[in-house]
């Protein structure tokens, strides 16, 4: 499973991408976020308040209940501020 991080989520976790094995029991974006938070350090900071984090699965906006699997690319980032 490929993970991508942007903006201050990227800064807090300290990397822009990584590839991980799907954590046991992580079936949704929300599960994955909780697992990442449990890693502690910058991850715990980045995912401290899930209301401030948004996600995309395979480049489409996704909510916490969206399913994720080994072949998915999951991105985490703050609410967007373009335009």
């Amino acid at each position, binding site marked *: 499973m490929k993970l991508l991080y*942007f903006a*201050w989520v990227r800064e807090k976790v300290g990397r822009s991408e990584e590839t991980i094995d799907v954590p046991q029991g992580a079936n949704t974006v929300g599960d994955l976020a909780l697992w990442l938070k449990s890693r502690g350090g910058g991850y715990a900071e980045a995912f401290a308040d899930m209301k401030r984090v948004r996600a*995309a699965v395979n480049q489409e*906006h996704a909510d916490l209940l969206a399913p994720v699997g080994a072949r998915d690319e999951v991105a985490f*980032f*703050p609410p*967007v*501020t*373009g*335009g």
Partner: protein
Amino acid sequence: MTVKVQREDFDPGAEIARLHEGRSDIGAVVSFVGVVRGDSGGDKLRTMTLEHFPGMTERELERIAEEARERWSLDGVTIVHRYGELKPGERIVLVVTAAGHRHAAFEAGSFLMDYLKTKAPFWKREMRESGEHWVEARESDDRAAERWR
């Protein structure tokens, strides 16, 4: 339908012309140019850096343009969004809509900007006199996008 995500500046006049020149079925072309503002209550902006999500950005802008085409009768849509470092006064985003009639072009342009603000994966980091920070998403932008639901 044209979507471009680029570092370089763009030419609003050329993009407007490209949508209607050589055609006689288009009655109205509306454009929106977003410009980096330098002021914010005395705390001056030095530069701004726009990070984006290559790949998703283009797809998301295409999805938004497609949705506008489903809602209004449009003869053309162009979206150009810059990323990278920008200074106050620089152009940052362009949306152009072409239609037979003016209200479709105006409404679709306004819709595209409201959706782009809440959907396109861009993040602004500001370098101000007082320091650097990531721009917070604004609730007013969410409310503006809600208008179209």
